[in-house]
């Protein structure tokens, strides 16, 4: 059973084509991330699902009903905004009650109970009577979340809800979102430009590029087996190195060779190397020149020149190489992703 079905959605603003034929189905209770760089159309797609934006062509179905032409208030959805959009003239509790009041859900007592439960879920019961402006960013964010889940919508839409938080709070909220989703199991569509968020939160990642879906797969699969060069470079900052494949060996531009897993067709290809999968060796392997070293606390990031390509590599903090020196690196054959072209 699916809660959200998008069929061949296109959207143009004037002459600019923002979405070109999106097909997407989200199962009941699934947590799906729309991941992509800014301007890829992911937020537009979310707004189309919410009804805040119309489609040029295509169909939006929520819980089996065609809602393409319905205004937002007639759709069984809830949306959480990047700026939280709390109503400043209402208290926290009134904000959380607002969707219940406007949708005329239950009696006043039932609404009270639901508001209380939602505030308990986000651990904010003690702030129920505060005004939104008296709360910190993280607290406001929780209120927005409580307000989004209180009406138990068919589809929960999250528009980069974590991007205004500082790094520590963001990680806390990620854990909390996972917990809450596991507990109440709302069908969720989550927009983000942050691949870590997409990978850690979702059941399925939908990578968008230039108004189309580049790849959709569970997080592990899309990370380990990106289908396209764009997917591999967007997820996990892969290094792309052109090579010639022949007989189980990849030959780089400068003539160095490295073994690859069998099965790749001979010809020109692009090697996608994850920065964490490159090992520093004392001898053997490939020669690369150290350009820069960046200290990251728990480890080092090295920028290397490999066969004329600049690549980024993560190494333990114990690896100390000076810029200008030569490094020996190796990559396990099964860690090399070979992309056509």
């Amino acid at each position, binding site marked *: 059973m699916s809660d959200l079905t998008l069929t061949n959605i296109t959207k143009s603003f004037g002459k600019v084509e923002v979405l070109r034929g999106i097909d997407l189905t989200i199962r009941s209770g699934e947590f799906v991330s729309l991941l992509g760089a800014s301007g890829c159309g992911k937020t537009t797609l979310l707004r189309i699902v*919410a*009804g*805040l934006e119309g489609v040029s062509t295509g169909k939006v179905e929520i819980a089996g009903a065609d809602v393409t032409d319905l*205004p*937002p*208030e007639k759709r069984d*959805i*809830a*949306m959480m*905004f990047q*700026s939280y*959009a709390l*109503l*400043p*003239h209402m208290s926290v509790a009134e904000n959380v009650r*607002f*969707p219940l009041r*406007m*949708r005329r859900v239950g009696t006043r007592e039932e609404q009270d109970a639901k508001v209380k439960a939602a505030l308990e879920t986000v651990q904010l019961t003690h702030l129920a009577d505060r*005004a939104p402006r008296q709360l910190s960013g993280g607290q406001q964010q929780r209120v927005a979340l409580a*307000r989004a889940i209180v*009406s138990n919508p068919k589809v929960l*839409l999250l528009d980069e809800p974590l991007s205004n938080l500082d790094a520590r709070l963001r990680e806390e909220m990620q854990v909390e979102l996972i917990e809450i989703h596991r507990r109440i199991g709302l069908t969720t569509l989550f927009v983000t430009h942050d691949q870590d968020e997409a990978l850690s939160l979702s059941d399925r990642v939908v990578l968008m590029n230039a108004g189309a879906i580049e790849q959709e797969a569970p997080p592990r699969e899309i990370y380990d087996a990106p289908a396209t060069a764009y997917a591999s470079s967007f997820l996990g900052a892969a290094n792309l190195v052109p090579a010639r494949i022949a007989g189980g060996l990849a030959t780089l531009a400068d003539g160095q060779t490295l073994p690859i897993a069998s099965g790749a067709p001979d010809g020109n290809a692009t090697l996608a190397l994850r920065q964490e999968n490159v090992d520093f060796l004392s001898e053997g392997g490939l020669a690369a020149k150290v350009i820069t070293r960046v200290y990251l606390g728990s480890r080092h990031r090295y920028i290397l020149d490999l066969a004329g390509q600049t690549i980024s590599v993560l190494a333990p903090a114990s690896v100390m190489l000076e810029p200008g020196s030569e490094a020996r690196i190796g990559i396990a054959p099964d860690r090399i992703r070979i992309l056509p072209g």
Partner: protein
Amino acid sequence: MTDRRETWLFLLPGLALLVVGFIFPIARMLVLSVQGPDGHTVDQFARFFQDTFYPSILWRTVYLSALITAICAAIGFPLAYIMARSGPRVRLWLVIMVILPLMTSVVVRTFGWMVLLSRSGLIASTLRDFGLVGRSFQLMHTETAIVLGMVQVLLPFMVLSLLGVIIRLDPRLEEAARTMGCSFLQTMRRVVLPLAAPGLLAGSILVFTLSASSFVTPALLGGPRIEVLAGSIYKNVTQTLDWNFAAAQAVILFAGIALLLIPYLRLGRRAHG
């Protein structure tokens, strides 16, 4: 120390103008209103309230001002909302359109209304052609004429006060309200209107005080029989030369407006939190 002196220096021109142009005349007016042939007296005030003539003028002034304020708010809110949510180019044209009446002289503007509203004017003759009104129908020299003329010239104050507030409201709030089950009109009522309250308040105060104290437009459009307090004061100063009575009326108008505004301002303070 220097900062403080500079602050005073900056305040001085405005302060001087306020003292010379406002506080001094008001004080004079207060003194005049209680001045009699032999010392202080409240005779002028007693005369105002001795029969229903002057109180009815006061009442007309208040309720016409209230009506004008209400109509300006009812027209101004949707207009200001549309202006706030349209692009900068459209907004500029709308602003020009709204303040255009302020750029024409009150005499020209009023004669324009006379052409429209008189017995042989466009509105009356059209209504007569449709057989909706009798031969003697005219809008000139009615309270309707005063309200029409005043709304036209005071609308910009309301619209610009509202525009300043609505334009700073985050449109996401309205979108959020829509996703929470509000129709467009409910969004206006539950979100935009409460948040625009400070602008509505400021605009209402401007419109109300300006219409309660105006006399040219009411005098020209209302005619001699439909008098408002400011017009009556003007008449006493320039025609009957009864300055003491004029001063008493001015004090009553001043006090009346102040009395009405105090609760309003309280409301405003609460809205600002």
